[in-house]
């Protein structure tokens, strides 16, 4: 689905991603973990070109999206993204937050979008908040709505950039549950997270990124029970 070849990203002379090649298959749930500053968020943000790669190519459904001639907006419509800080639009109520993109990009008519918004909100248990503004919601509620907002575009793939890192501990569960549900429905997901329990339970493949490179990748069982890379062993001993 996504093919990453020799991806390198540097900010000035600081190399954040060093020659990463990866392939993400349809239906996979790839969980990316690593210490802070390792480049895992940058890797994720390169996948929908929020960060412009310095070199290398990213191919999505056969289209090289790093080509400047590609309509990046059309590509992004097929990839949902959920941010650490939710990034809901505070000037709009929840319903408008969700329906803005589907309507403005011409994906659907307003009433169809509203219908879908309500259906998705029901699924995450927040249908009563449709007319509320983001400032009136808790962090967990905001993040569930951010997920709904991305889903309303009917994406083929969802990117999660530390979706639970900015939440109070008691709200982490409600967001992870929504993500688990989504995973069970077969959505292709790339998740950057510090939630090891989630990685073990939901991930189909786990990448450990450190120093701008994928140091180790494996199935969750192998990854957590038999880590080979010494840095990963060290990392896991600290977080588990």
């Amino acid at each position, binding site marked *: 689905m996504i093919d990453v070849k020799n991806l390198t990203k540097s900010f000035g002379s600081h190399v954040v991603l060093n020659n990463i090649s990866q392939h993400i298959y349809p239906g996979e749930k790839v969980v990316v973990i690593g210490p802070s500053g390792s480049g895992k968020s940058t890797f994720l943000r390169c996948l*929908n070109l929020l960060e412009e790669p310095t070199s290398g190519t990213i191919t999505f459904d056969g289209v090289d999206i790093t080509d400047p001639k590609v309509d990046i907006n*059309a590509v992004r*419509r097929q990839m949902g993204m959920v941010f650490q800080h939710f*990034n809901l639009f*505070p*000037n709009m*109520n929840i319903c408008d937050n969700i329906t803005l993109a589907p309507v403005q990009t011409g994906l659907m008519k307003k009433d169809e979008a509203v219908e879908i918004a309500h259906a998705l909100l029901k699924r995450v248990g927040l249908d009563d908040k449709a007319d509320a503004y983001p400032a009136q919601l808790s962090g967990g509620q905001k993040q569930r709505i951010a997920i709904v907002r*991305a889903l309303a575009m009917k994406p083929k793939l969802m990117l999660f950039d530390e979706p639970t890192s900015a939440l109070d501990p008691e709200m982490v569960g409600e967001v992870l549950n929504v993500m688990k549900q989504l995973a069970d429905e077969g959505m292709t997901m790339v998740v950057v997270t510090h939630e090891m329990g989630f990685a073990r339970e939901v991930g189909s493949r786990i990448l450990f990124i450190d120093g701008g490179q994928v140091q180790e990748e494996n199935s969750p069982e192998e990854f957590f029970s038999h880590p080979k890379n010494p840095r990963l062993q060290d990392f896991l001993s600290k977080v588990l």
Partner: protein
Amino acid sequence: MNVDQLYETLSQIPKTDLAMWQDVFLKFYRAWFAEDRWLNYFEGLVTTIEVTIIALIIGVVLGVLVAMIRTAHDQQRPGTHNFVLGFLNGISQVYVTIIRGTPMMVQLMIWGFVIFATSRNFTLVGALGLGVNSGAYVAEIIRGGLMSLDPGQMEAGRSLGLNYIQTMRFIVIPQAFKAILPSLGNEFIVLLKDTSLISVIAGKEIVYAARAIGARTYEYMFPFVITAIMYLIMVLIFSWLQGKLERRLRRSDRR
């Protein structure tokens, strides 16, 4: 006894024999009632309001345009460089630098005595000069507002597949507008008060009227106090309207 009769009576008395309040009354009468001079202030007031509105429109249009060009230029995808945008950005920077780097009054004199030296329409020239001046400040205020917004908002819009213009229009600008409203209001008050400067190029607004009346009566206190009060009332009305608008825009902040 009405004011005219009172004036007639008092003006017969020699100046040295007048009580304090009588002297003040005479001065005020000459500055306001005599020869229907109060009409002159209001004619000036109308000009002031006209100039403010014209300058405001020019300032906002120029300001939005320049702010858009400069922000779009700064937010280009790294590596891409649009030549037209670069050129317009250069012009915008020169414009802002010149306007902010020179005094308002000097600019007005250049407009009035150099560029439009042959024009008799001082009011319009003044409005143009003020508008072009205000545009540079408005541009910087708007640009500051657009830049101060959390970049995550732009990223969220773009990640949903909206293009740059759509994200600006629906997400960034509405929020930036709310954030810059106080400084924008402040700039409009400055503009309103700066209209008094067009009297230096013979624009016939309130200060021009007040100076003419002072020159006729040899008494400047009341003409200028009246002028000050008129400006103050206009600014108070404007501040009140601005406060109302701000409260309306704050609806989405309620918890």
